[in-house]
């Protein structure tokens, strides 16, 4: 056999081999988004007390609300569960959710003291607009995360894997955001079943 043909065949076999190995690896499932991480049913379900910061109906202040959140499957699942709780209305109270309907937390990335949260495009598409609503959306997320996860000092919000200037044209989210004390309701409200901090 011609030497050239032999070398060609050897190269072809090696190339096919490499491609086959790559295809095998690629065919393996990729990690699920944070919000869809299945909880190991064998593990004992653990609940942790979490303070949510949710908007009052006047969109003036964030009100702290204590809830129990499942904490079994690691940080991404825990954070996803907190976001889900933040999105739910609380019956018979003067507080409202400020996460736009249909918003999903796609990914959670701890990076040093920064918590990177990547949301689905509904957080933009379904946002009602207005400075107050936008502030409530952002700081409801940021204050809740930083209050309950003391390992982090800032939250960086991305949408669909990409950074944005704003969610609805007002508040700057192009950089990490820090805890905002000024938005927390200063005075105890009438009995609403929610937790209040007194001065």
């Amino acid at each position, binding site marked *: 056999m011609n030497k050239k043909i032999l070398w060609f065949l050897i190269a072809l076999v090696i190339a096919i081999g490499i491609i086959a190995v790559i295809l095998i690896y690629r065919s393996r499932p990729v990690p699920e988004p944070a919000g869809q991480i299945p909880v190991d049913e064998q593990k004992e379900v653990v609940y942790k007390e979490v303070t949510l910061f949710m908007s009052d109906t006047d969109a003036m202040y964030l009100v702290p609300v204590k809830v129990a959140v499942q904490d079994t499957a690691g940080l991404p699942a825990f954070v996803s569960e907190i976001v889900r709780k933040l999105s739910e209305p609380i019956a018979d109270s003067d507080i409202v959710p400020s996460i736009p309907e249909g918003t999903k937390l796609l990914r959670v990335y701890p990076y040093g003291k920064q918590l990177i949260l990547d949301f689905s495009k509904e957080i933009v598409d379904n946002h009602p607009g207005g400075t107050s609503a936008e502030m409530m959306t952002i700081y409801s997320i940021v204050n809740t995360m930083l209050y309950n996860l003391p390992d982090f000092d*800032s939250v960086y919000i991305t949408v669909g894997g990409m950074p944005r200037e704003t969610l609805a044209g007002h*508040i700057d989210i192009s950089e990490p955001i820090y805890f905002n004390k000024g938005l927390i309701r200063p005075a105890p409200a009438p009995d609403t079943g929610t937790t209040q901090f007194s001065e």
Partner: protein
Amino acid sequence: MTVRSHIRPFFLLFILLFSSAFSKIELNYSGEKSSATFIQEQGTKLYNLLDIKKYITADINKDILNDLLIISAKNGILKINYKTGMVYGVAHKKLLAAVKKNGVFLGTDFYLLLNKIIPEFIDIGANSIFITNSRPNIYSVNIEETKNGATISVLFSEILKYKIRQDGQNLAIDFDNGILSRQIAHTDTSLLNIEQMQSAQFSRITFMPKFIGKLKGVDRYPGKIIINYLLNKKIRQPDKPTKTVTIVIDPGHGGKDPGAIGYKGLKEKNVVLDIGRRLRKMLKRELNVNAIMTRDADYFVTLDNRTKIANRANADLFIAIHCNAAPYYKVNTAKGIEVYFVSEARDRSSKEVEARENAQPGKQGYVEKKHSDDLQMILLSQAYRAHLTKSSALAKDISSSLTSDVSMENRGVRQAMFYVLRGANMPSVLIELGFVTNPSDAKKLTDKKYKQRLTKDIFEGIKLYLEQFEK
């Protein structure tokens, strides 16, 4: 170990063999060589960007890598986010050109990873630094005394576009994307005063002769301007203030962006345009000021371009007009008008820790009474620092004027991190006229008489401010 980590060796192999998605370029910062790897945004997932450190060749200083996170650039502004702080800078021309060449479209966000950055510091804030990490492209200003006057030479990169404006004896040069050298601050000013202004979009040098005389001529060459003055030795009296106040009115949203949509389909973009036009007319007619609108019809203007318009006009005030919306569509009780000025709640100091520790039910000191006490100011630039007090005063003047006539709940003066106000090189406020989602507010915002009264109140607030600060 995740499945993805199995793929990494092959991923690296592909990068090395078929590096079309990653292109390396050589940069030059302040005379020292640096290299950068660009990762195109298209098809690149966030987790790949965060893991990219692992794909970098071994000869890179690990300490520098530890400081890196994500660097994004937009419209020539470089933002570097690293563990110990934020850095803002103006991207080097070569960097921007390389980005264009490598297929990342300017004007959209992209990420890049720098192996080494040697910035020239301009301004250091509490937790932020304003830098230029590129060499200046306006190199020097030299003033030579001649027999009967002075000759000024301005040297700059010949690719820079510029405009020259003359105002009596004074002459100003505006450079697009110019970066002023520090040398200019040390120019001899025995014959002329020199004023410098550096913004992200452009830079300005203004020459103001100290002696009576006239501008003889301006000669333009590639990368060089020669200005000749005839001056006698009589000291020039300061010009009487003839400056016309310029106010930029910025009706929010517009075009494809309706802003908030409220009760009975009321659109924010239409309300704010109407009020903006009324305000412009009133300011021109009653105060004879130069009132400019960032949009005077229903079209979209980017947030960056809104302040660009104001900065280029050298405006004295920037007034953004918006309408508010309730955060939850099922509850529309939120109502009222409020006036904002910009803040930076980026305190990473012990304040958060302190807040977290004190945030126990019944514990004293967690909640403070005033927003101004609550929000830690991080000063982004010298301009921001200079205008903060005036912005606060303008917001208070407008807010206090609103209570007299307008029968809408006044939510007072507040602070927030507005993207649109960050780039303004002048005092700026953002007025939220009311909640379009609230039936009562929405009804008022469609009533012509109410809108005229509301405009009049905003006008009175601006007038009050001008009487204090722009006399």
